[in-house]
């Protein structure tokens, strides 16, 4: 089935929604969610780049003989970038906990000792 570049547009939109949350939301946790959305969009894009129409997962255990397989590299890259995303989110949330401890709020408008 030919779907043109429609799937890529979906991934790009996911990135755009994440960026929107990151830029225009005032709550630190919502900003972290925005970053996660951007990450998900990029990962989705990576996986899509590696798809070959009609391909199966590139694993030979009990595979059908002569089967077409999708590209393995983007899957490996996505695996790496998911783990990196996990690490980033963990650190960001820890910082949010400490910002809340010091400032008593998660509102970015009230957290601005570092201006200028």
């Amino acid at each position, binding site marked *: 089935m030919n779907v043109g570049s429609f799937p890529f547009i979906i991934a790009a939109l996911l990135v755009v929604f994440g960026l929107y949350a990151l830029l225009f939301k005032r709550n630190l946790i919502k900003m972290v969610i925005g970053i996660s959305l951007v990450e998900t969009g990029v990962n989705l894009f990576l996986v899509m780049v590696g798809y070959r129409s009609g391909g199966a997962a590139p*694993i*030979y*255990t009990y595979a059908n*003989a002569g089967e077409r397989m999708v590209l393995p590299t983007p899957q490996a890259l996505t*695996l790496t970038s998911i783990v990196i995303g996990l690490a980033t989110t963990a650190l960001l949330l*820890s910082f949010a*906990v400490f910002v809340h401890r010091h400032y008593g709020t998660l509102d970015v408008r009230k957290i601005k000792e570092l201006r200028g």
Partner: protein
Amino acid sequence: MNQDGMSIIVRTVTRFVYGLVLVFGFYVIMHGHLTPGGGFQGGAVVASAFALLLVAFGAAGVKGRLSKHLLQSLEEIGALAFLGLAFAGIGTAFFYNLLANSGSLFGASVALGPNAGFLNTGGLVPLMNWAVGLKVMTGIASIVIVMLVGARKEETE
């Protein structure tokens, strides 16, 4: 929600599911070179079992069972093991897979094309899966424990 975890229903289910999740996680790590999965995925599954335990029984409930220091040491050992396996092939090149097709441990060759899959293949790959699995399960578990305990302290203060 009280400080020591969740209701009796959740605890009972957790006791039942906990072992199954652990077994599944170790299966995913062990068969990483044959079926979908591997060290990272399996490690994350095992860590989710720890997280389940933490949520159900609370930080106080698992204090004796999961030691933060032990987890941390195990994580460092896993990371060092992975680095050591990468160093193993430095006679040829860093990360050279010197056990593949060697005939010894994990050194069996595989038949070309689709096959049933044998554990004794893959050279260094299964060993690396175990090292990474150990690293990931302990790493994520210690992040979860530390953040849960730290955030709890905040609520009570």
